[in-house]
């Protein structure tokens, strides 16, 4: 039976905590220290986010990767300015992606996402896009768009796409 987003979120808090704690205790993820204080995510969540950004925006033929552009820190800052529930949803999603126990049960992948090689991460992420589990597709859509939009907001990227940047704005008087 497909696990709906609603039914997944309806899992008891205790069950979720046990699963998460077991996954993290048995299979700790790769840690990437942040450049600055984190405002929204834990260091563990931030590390998963970095691994995902490297997967979604890997950089190629002269284009910097999303990691090099600092997209993870930007998203950490962005969610610190939104209601805390928004950041908590993203943190939950990152936890699910990272969790090796969940990965082992559902995907025969008994390693944390952040410890997988880039090619394997790309396969897993692409599979989330078309997963039979609606929650995974929701996570994919939300996070993928955020990462791509943030990456392509950087002038270093847009210049590579042949975008000349916005027009010069002449000085304008005061609004009425």
């Amino acid at each position, binding site marked *: 039976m497909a696990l709906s987003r609603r039914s997944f979120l309806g899992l008891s808090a205790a069950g979720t905590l046990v699963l998460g704690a077991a996954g993290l205790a048995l299979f700790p993820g790769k840690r990437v220290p942040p450049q600055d204080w984190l405002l929204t995510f834990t260091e563990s969540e931030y590390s998963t986010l970095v691994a995902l950004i490297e997967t979604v925006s890997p950089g190629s033929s002269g284009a910097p990767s999303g990691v090099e552009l600092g997209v993870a820190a930007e998203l950490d800052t962005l969610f610190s300015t939104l209601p805390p529930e928004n950041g908590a949803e993203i943190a939950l999603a990152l936890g699910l992606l990272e969790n090796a126990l969940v990965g082992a049960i559902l995907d025969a992948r008994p390693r944390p996402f952040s410890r997988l090689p880039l090619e394997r991460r790309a396969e897993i992420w692409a599979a989330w896009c078309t997963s039979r589990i609606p929650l995974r597709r929701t996570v994919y859509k939300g996070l993928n*768009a955020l990462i791509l939009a943030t990456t392509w907001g950087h002038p270093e990227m847009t210049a590579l796409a042949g975008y000349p940047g916005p027009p010069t*704005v002449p000085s304008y*008087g005061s609004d009425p």
Partner: protein
Amino acid sequence: MKVTTGDQLSGRTDLQADVCIVGSGAGGGVLAWQLTQAGHKVVMLEAGSHHTTQDFAPLEERLAYPALYQERMTRATKDAAISVLQGRTVGGTTTVNWTTCFRTPERILAHWQQHFGVELGDMLPHYEAVEERLGVAEWPVEAANANNLTLWRGCKALGWQVKALRRNVRGCVSSGYCGLGCAFGAKQGMLLTTLPDAVNAGMELYADCRVLKVERQGQEWEVQGQIQAPGDLSSTGAEIRVRAKRVVLSAGAIGSPGILLRSGINPNGAVGRRTFLHPVVAVAARYEEDINGWAGAPQAVGSHEFVDRGEQVGFFLEVPPMQPMLVASGVMGSGAMVNDFMAQLPKLSSHLALMVDGLHPGAPGGTVELLSNGRPKLDYPIGPALVEAMATAHRAMARCHLAAGAQEVFTLHPSPVSMTSEDHLERLDAAAYGALEHSIFSAHQMGGCGMSGDAKAGVVDAEHRVKGQDGLYVVDGSVMPTSLGVNPSQTIYSLAHRAAGILSADL
């Protein structure tokens, strides 16, 4: 224009007015203009911050979207399938929209009368009044950018209906950056027109005020809000209370239902139900010539060839601006393929198909609900009728691009369907359509506080009065009983102009 901002308020601010308007967008802006002209004392509360024309420079997407849009441009439906673009700034969405204006289609007004008992009377004086104040005029096809011209050429080649659009601009320099706020002072949104008119006539405008609820107190209403620092979404701890004879909710199709639900007001159990989005799907194409779709008026032409498909859900065709961040956010794939796609940006054109939801039983819209933190969230299921329309729209857009001379056409599926000739259109048959199958977004939010002439249905009557709540009104896009099949801004302006007469008579 004098605006009181969140950093100027502390403790509790108490105000008194004839009318308190919640929201400064298309509904609230026009209503305030007319009510102050009639001599009424108006207080307006806006959740967004005050950004002036000077603030819109340097027109960088990464700065503008988080500052000017709801939820810092991350607003989406509950399942994340539809990205929802909606303004959150003084002037509301009129500050960031793409300026396309249509009068309400006659067939829609007839549908509202027949199916919802909504008789609006003669709308012509209201259309004409807002057109004059907002400078609504046809944008000549000769001034259209190459992105719009691919739609124009394709429709002409296929014999489809296509027309130049009308826009609310004066002295437009065709920068193409309407979605980031007009830094050239040309867009005739509320920020530069009706709000200054109203403030100059005595209205008090407060930005950074998030209204939590409204409450009946004796013969008056009290509006209760919390104050945020400019640019911030969290409360400073300061409060605002406005007591008024009449309260008007103009907070938009997601905000107004949210306020009513938080206030425990839910006539006929209809608040938040039948919320419409004109869900948008897109098909992109690469052309031999440069398109440079980031420059030029974003929307200059449109086609209503498929707007009325009888028993099936209709759609209409327009184009979006093609700034890189907006384009990238619509890509469903990931990894190196995105870089390859984006490298073609100067030669990419994109067509949009906007689904006309709410007219058919199979497209009943979505539902605004409250989260545990009291903020509204939209659940919008996409059923088979919309899936069929989205599939048909993909084929139509692909045909249009090919007829316009595209070299290669791509869908926005995770694995894009690629076509270089009409023979390849059958590849679209194997693709999946609907929620989370491809990119979908919405720039038009309507319904949720629908009008109805039946006392036992809908949220407001045809005079915008909330049923069973004397002195409480809704004047914004949320009152529409269905979506429109055209861009909704001018319908909201015109409804608000009409509502001003109703409120004045009630005061």
